[in-house]
C-alpha cells in the first residue's frame, strides 16, 4: 500500500477523539487510591492507636513522606506518558525524595530502639508480610497506571513503567502505613523499601511488554 492510499484510508470516516488529560488521569489515580484506602480502613485493619499516635513525629514522618512520595511519583508517571516527556530527571527526583525520607527516619527513631539487636529491629518474619501487603495493595494502582500508559504514547516506556511502579509502590505503602503496627523507622525503611522496589521491578519488567506505540 502506498502512503497516499494509507492517508486516504486513515482520513476517511475520521471519528472525533477524546483528548488525553493529565488532570483527569491524576484524578482517576487519586480516586482509586482514596477508594482503596477507604476500603482497607473500612475492613477494620487500621491500627487501634492511630488516634493516639496522631501528631507524633513518627507517624507524621511515615505517612507524610510516603504520601508526598506517592503524589510526586504519580505526577511524574502520568507526565512521563507524553511522547515529549523526559522521565529520567523525574525519576532522579523521586529517588532523591525517597532517600531524603529514609534519612528523615533517623530523626524520629524512638528512644531505646537503637539499643535492640539489629535482627530484632528488622524482624524478617513480620517484614516479609508487610512487604507482601504493600505489593498487593499497589496492584490496583499499577494496573490503572498501566492502562493509562497503554492509552497514551510514552516514547520511553521502560522509564515510564519504572515511574509507574514507584508511584504504585508508594501508594500501596501509604495505604499500608495506616495499619502497620511497627514503630521502628529502621523496620519501616527496610521493608517498605523492599515492597516498593518489588512493585517497581515488576512494573518495569511487565508493563513495557504490554505496550506498543
Amino acid at each position: 500500500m502506498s502512503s497516499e492510499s494509507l492517508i486516504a484510508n486513515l482520513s476517511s470516516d475520521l471519528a472525533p477523539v477524546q483528548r488525553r488529560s493529565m488532570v483527569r488521569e491524576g484524578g482517576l489515580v487519586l480516586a482509586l487510591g482514596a477508594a482503596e484506602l477507604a476500603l482497607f480502613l473500612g475492613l477494620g485493619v487500621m491500627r487501634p492507636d492511630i488516634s493516639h499516635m496522631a501528631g507524633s513525629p513518627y507517624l507524621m514522618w511515615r505517612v507524610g513522606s510516603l504520601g508526598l512520595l506517592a503524589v510526586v511519583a504519580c505526577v511524574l508517571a502520568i507526565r512521563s506518558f507524553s511522547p515529549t516527556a523526559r522521565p529520567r530527571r523525574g525519576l532522579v527526583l523521586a529517588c532523591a525524595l525517597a532517600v531524603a525520607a529514609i534519612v528523615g527516619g533517623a530523626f524520629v527513631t524512638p528512644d531505646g530502639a537503637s539499643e535492640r539487636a539489629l535482627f530484632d529491629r528488622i524482624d524478617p518474619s513480620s517484614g516479609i508480610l508487610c512487604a507482601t501487603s504493600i505489593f498487593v495493595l499497589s496492584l490496583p494502582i499499577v494496573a490503572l497506571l498501566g492502562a493509562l500508559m497503554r492509552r497514551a504514547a510514552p516514547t520511553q516506556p521502560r522509564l515510564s513503567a519504572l515511574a509507574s511502579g514507584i508511584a504504585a509502590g508508594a501508594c500501596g505503602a501509604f495505604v499500608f502505613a495506616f495499619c502497620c503496627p511497627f514503630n521502628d523507622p529502621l523496620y519501616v525503611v527496610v521493608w517498605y523499601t523492599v515492597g516498593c522496589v518489588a512493585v517497581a521491578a515488576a512494573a518495569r519488567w511487565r508493563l513495557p511488554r504490554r505496550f506498543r506505540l
Partner: protein
Amino acid sequence: MATASRERPSRTAPDGWSSLMEAAQNGHGGAYRRLLGEMSEWLTRYFQRRLPPGDVDDAVQETLLAIHRRRHTYDPQHPLGPWLAAIAKNKWVDQLRSLARRPVDELPDDIAVGDHEASVVSSSVLASLLDELRPAQAQAILLVKVQGYSVEEASGKIGLSVSAVKMNIHRGLARLTAIIEKSPDVE
C-alpha cells in the same frame, strides 16, 4: 510547506499543523488528510537521512499509523513539532532494531564484477580534456579514437571532408598532449 522541509519540526513545523491536528481530533477528515500528507513529506526526508532506501516507506507508514493511533495524546496548547519528532524518533529506533534482527544473507561469489574504477576515471578525465578542444576537434577524436569509427564514417557523420577530419584529429591530439604535459598532477 517550505518551512516544514527542514530537519527539525520542533523549530520549523508550520503553526498550521497544530490547528490541523486540532481539527483532526475533532473529526475533520479533510484537515487530517492534508496534515498527514504534509507530515508524510517531512517524514520521508527524515527517514531518508537515517535508514536504507528500502526501509524508508515502511518507516513513514509505521509512523503515520502511530500518529493516527495516538492522535488523542497531542495537546493543541503545545507545538506539534516536538510531538511528531518524538514519535518519528521512536519509530526510527524501532526500524534500526528490526534491521539489526534481520538475517544477513551471504552474497554469492559470482555476484562480484570487475573493477571499473580505472575506466570510470579515464572516461571522466577524457571528457574534461575534450572540453578544452575546439568542438570540431573534440568530435573527431571522440568518433574515431574513442568510439572506433573510421575516418570516412566520421567524415559522413560530422559533415566535413576526410582531410579536414584527419587535420582536426591531428591538431586536437597535439593540443591534448600539450595540455597533459602542462598539467602538474600527471604522473
